[in-house]
């Protein structure tokens, strides 16, 4: 997996060079599937739009789907079990207004986890997806100290039943990959967004923030969306709506 990522990075640099040399060149349709050799491109910025008004109280469909998709299982030890996505209940002590919404890696444009990682294992792809290279993660957990969203989990014990698409290993850190294996396959849905739609809530919308015609861009343009901890100026790829 890391080999292909390295290829992605190398080819990314080539692609960036090509784009600079040939301005105006019409690149391939961005929505189509890419071959593994083709680089993740900064022409895309993958993200999520989460509508808190549509997120149903007590529903955990997105959480279950994510963890099934990525082979993330626990040992009934909530303090050390990994959670790539969780539902958070938020209430206003002043008004008593309460709502639920899912929180996962926010795929920042300026990710603090990437800044602090000593080996560069935490990295951000050109298309905005923030990942951990499990081959060079030394398990120092500095990224977990730096993440404002508590998005990352440390693997505290032996993992079993790994998915071929999502290698995991004891002693390393992991988090939401925005279903990078699906993105690279050309799928148009993450597991969480798909499960939410299947439940009929459609509270999670996945798409390309750089494509003005994508549904997520149109929705954001029409109705807006906010970033969690916007005061940190991280320009997150995950946006929220209906948070009041």
């Amino acid at each position: 997996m890391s080999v292909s990522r390295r290829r992605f990075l190398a080819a990314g640099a080539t692609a960036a060079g090509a784009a600079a040399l040939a301005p105006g060149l019409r690149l391939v349709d961005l929505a189509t599937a890419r071959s593994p050799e083709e680089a993740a491109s900064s022409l895309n910025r993958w993200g999520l739009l989460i509508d808190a008004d549509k997120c149903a109280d007590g529903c955990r469909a997105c959480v279950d789907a994510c963890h099934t998709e990525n082979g993330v299982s626990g040992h009934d030890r909530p303090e050390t079990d990994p959670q790539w996505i969780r539902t958070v209940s938020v209430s206003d002590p002043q008004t008593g207004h309460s709502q639920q919404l899912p929180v996962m890696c926010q795929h920042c444009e300026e990710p603090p986890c990437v800044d602090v990682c000593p080996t560069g294992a935490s990295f951000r792809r050109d298309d905005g997806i923030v990942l951990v290279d499990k081959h060079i993660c030394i398990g120092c957990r500095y990224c977990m100290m730096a993440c404002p969203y508590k998005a990352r989990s440390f693997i505290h014990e032996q993992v079993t039943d790994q998915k071929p698409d999502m290698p995991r290993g004891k002693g390393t850190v992991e988090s939401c990959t925005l279903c990078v294996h699906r993105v690279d396959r050309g799928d148009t849905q993450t597991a969480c967004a798909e499960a939410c739609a299947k439940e009929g809530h459609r509270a999670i919308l996945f798409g390309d923030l750089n494509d003005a015609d994508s549904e997520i861009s149109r929705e954001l343009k029409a109705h807006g969306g906010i970033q969690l901890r916007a005061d940190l100026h991280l320009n997150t790829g995950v946006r929220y709506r209906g948070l009041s």
Partner: protein
Amino acid sequence: MAATPAQRYTLIDGRGPAYIGLLAVLGALVLIGLACAYTMEHNGHVITGMSNQVVWGTPHVFAVFLIVAASGALNVASIASVFGRRHYKPLTRLSGLLAIALLVGGLSVLVLDLGRPDRLIVAMTYYNFKSIFAWNIFLYVGFMVVVAVYLWMMFERRMNRFSKPAGLVAFLWRLILTTGTGSIFGFLVARQAYDAAIMAPMFIIMSFAFGLAIFLLVLMSTGRPLGKQLLGRLANLLGVFVASVLYFSLVFHLTNLYATQHHGVERFILLDGGIYTVAFWVGHIIVGGLFPLLLLYVTPRRSPALIALAAILVILGGLAQVYVIIIGGQVYPLDLFPGREVSSSFFDGVVANYTPSLPELGLGVGGFALALAVVAVAVRVLPFLPEDLSDHAVDPNHVPEPAPRAVEAGDTSAA
């Protein structure tokens, strides 16, 4: 003015049962530490008190304490070489040795706590230069090299004349190093308990106090004759450092108390944080601050035993202070939705649980033991210690404190 007398540096006698016993105890503690690290590595961090909420635990408390103390232990050498105080000159070799040994102990703990300690080579070959951890890898390794060169300049007679510039480099390096250690926390913008520029200078002043406290105890345990005035000077210095740590802690918390957004975390640490509040007030402030000051400045007869007690209290209080900073800062929840109340299955919005586990304590104590073992072996194989540290041996102009009876007799011959 008479020149500083040439000091004779000698090996310690390592044949006695006390020395053998000390090495045996330290060796056993190091082995226990290694066994703890192996158990953690084999089973995963699930067997420790650490979790996804408290990602850095007791090993980090020991590691940071030792690393901070390491740079501080070099102070005595810096005072002699950089600031030209010749009374401290005979202590420079031990000061440099202790600096390296404490750093080795601290780094061993840090590395053995990694999720993948087997990937140390990765940490040495892949660098992200925006990471303070990556800078620190260079700063720590560089520190050992710089201090080793400095020691060589002191040991090798032909190189003695270079010991001042080497000492200056080592002094500047240690300031940068501790700035780097403090900035590991100071630069964490997302966490309420950290994110403060004052953490870098605060760590420097903490290093002065912790390093000198350990230095004093090691020096007193070597069995070399120790002058009352020399010991008194070191004790006065320790008092100044301890008071400075209290001052920095005061400013840090006062600044936070002024900003409404930090009231939550301050209330937690200072008022209702349970064990963390106790560790702060009883551990850091009383045991590590006020009580040593009392012993060092207020007691009428400052005996070596009281000075040693003060140094021990500074070390215990220092560990409590680092515990509050590292663990207390993490158990307090992240402010994901400022101004809202939150809850989740991932412990959002609640104070996290943390209890130090035996493997963590074993690893931390093992690091301490390793540092002391390095010192114990080094003073046996190389002449780090002056034969005589009594006041007249350190300073030819030394005037013994007149005994009360002598004063009456008018015997106050000047230097």
